[in-house]
């Protein structure tokens, strides 16, 4: 992988990483009268260039948090600030990779990646950028293939390349490796770290995989119900834990520090005895 990441090929084009500030974010869903709060009082400051993993059980509002940052969803209360300015509507500074690749089946991989290019980019510069990104994710030989002609892992890498084409200040990843087999997932995680060291953008990574969070993140944010014994009548998830992961990447999966952290994170997610 390092071979395709020749220094200078991608670094020159990368925009500055931007900080993200969630401030008192709350969101409810449902019709009036039967609204259910999903998120409440989520406040966190994400440093520029940081990889923040957002952990939580399914349905706890992880994706909702990410969608608020992307401008795909409007919170009921609070706001998201990127580089100090609030997000309103689809934000040019962010790029999203979803859990599914969501590629246009009638386009080639190359054309799909080109969708991610910022509006301002010229045709020739855009094409060069797309080919460079396809090379970065190891798909330059498949530029002219259609999504249905490649595997799920390749489609997901295309989706990642499309997000990177945006030159994002903030990269939003919504369980992008969740649907992949174990081996492909590890390769994708390595690829993400390679990309991050080449283009040090801020990354918000939603995941339900504790080990993935431990491998990739600088800090791990756990979303969950904040009911330590006493019921205060408030529903919806909020931040129950925010920890800094010890050690530099790549981390030894078997280290004792990580093992202890893994156990405590798993018990926060309701899984005990591991």
């Amino acid at each position, binding site marked *: 992988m390092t071979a395709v990441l020749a220094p200078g090929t991608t670094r020159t084009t990368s925009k500055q990483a931007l900080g993200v500030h969630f401030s008192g974010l709350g969101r409810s869903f449902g019709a009036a009268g039967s609204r259910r709060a999903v998120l409440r009082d989520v406040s966190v400051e994400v440093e520029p260039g940081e990889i923040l993993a957002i952990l939580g059980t399914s349905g706890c509002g992880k994706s909702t948090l990410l969608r608020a940052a992307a401008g795909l969803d409007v919170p009921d209360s609070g706001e998201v600030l990127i580089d100090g300015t609030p997000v309103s509507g689809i934000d040019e500074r962010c790029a*999203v990779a979803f859990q599914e690749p969501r590629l246009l089946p009638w386009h080639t991989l190359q054309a799909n990646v080109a969708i991610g290019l910022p509006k301002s980019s010229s045709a020739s510069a855009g094409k060069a950028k797309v080919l460079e990104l396809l090379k970065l994710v*190891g798909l330059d030989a498949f530029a002219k293939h259609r999504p249905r002609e*490649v595997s799920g*892992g390749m489609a997901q890498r295309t989706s990642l390349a499309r997000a990177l084409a945006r030159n994002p200040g903030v990269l939003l990843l919504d369980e992008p490796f969740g649907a992949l087999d174990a*081996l492909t997932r590890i390769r994708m995680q390595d690829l993400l770290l390679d990309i991050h060291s080449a283009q040090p953008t801020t990354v918000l990574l939603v995941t339900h995989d504790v080990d993935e969070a431990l491998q990739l993140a600088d800090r791990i944010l756990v979303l969950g119900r904040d009911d330590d014994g006493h019921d205060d009548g408030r529903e919806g998830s909020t931040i129950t834990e925010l920890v800094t992961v010890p050690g530099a990447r790549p981390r030894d999966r078997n280290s004792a520090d990580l093992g202890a952290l893994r156990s405590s994170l798993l018990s926060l997610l309701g899984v005990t005895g591991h």
Partner: protein
Amino acid sequence: MSSEVGQRAVPISRAELAAIGSPVTAEDAVGQGDVPAGFGRGARSTTGRRIGIILLGLIVPALLLLGWHLSTASGFFKPSQLPSPTSVLAAAVDLVDRGQLATHILISTQRVVLGFLIGSVLGVVAGAVLGLSRVADILLTPTVGALRAVPSLAWVPLLVLWIGINEDSKVTLITIGAFFPVFTTLYLGLRHVDRNLVEAARAFGVNGLRLLTTVQLPAVVPALFSGLRLALAQSWLFLVAAELIASSMGLGFLLVDSQQNGRVDRILLAIILLAIIGKTTDALLGIAERWAVRRWA
């Protein structure tokens, strides 16, 4: 769109099979195992298979023809009830000699093609506007639904009064017949475009006209073609209706005229011609559909 996962399953499993026997190269480090090996294999034999399928499809018509011949040759049916295949062929030759058959066929085909084209274009425009604009949908869908509920032949008296008995009224009736299938399939297709794809495109700043041309229209191409094929079948239906009611040329006219003169052979000839021409035009559209589905789906 919803079968996305299912479509992908095949290349993966093929690739995994192929990966077992192949050494892993450096470039493959990330993508190893997901090379779509064997994709497109067997393309050469499809032409042969298609011809075989067409020939198999001709078995039943050939048997029908044989049965028809035997039932008339054996005297089971009287010629006034069911004329023999050879006498139908003779009626065709007779009409060709008089220079009438080509006129009937050409004028009918022209009416169908014109009505189908105009109706389809109007159907695409109306379907796109109502399928994409919430305001237009709320304002117009009840009205269009009510108009669609009118059996299209009910328009005939009005068309004859307003336009008169001429080409325009016939083409208009066919236009009405072709409009609704195209409108309905496109309208519903646009409502059901994969929300995930639309959202992904929006997340990358694609909206408005660009969203329509890059995501929404391509996504409905397969649905649009089923609508067009339905519309073509409707066009032939309405052609015969229009020509039965008031005309001096065309295959529908040949039907009424032959009925009044007791020429069962010419009636059968007209029916067979309608079947053959209708099937041919549908097959041509089917070829276009296959191309479009390969290109867009």
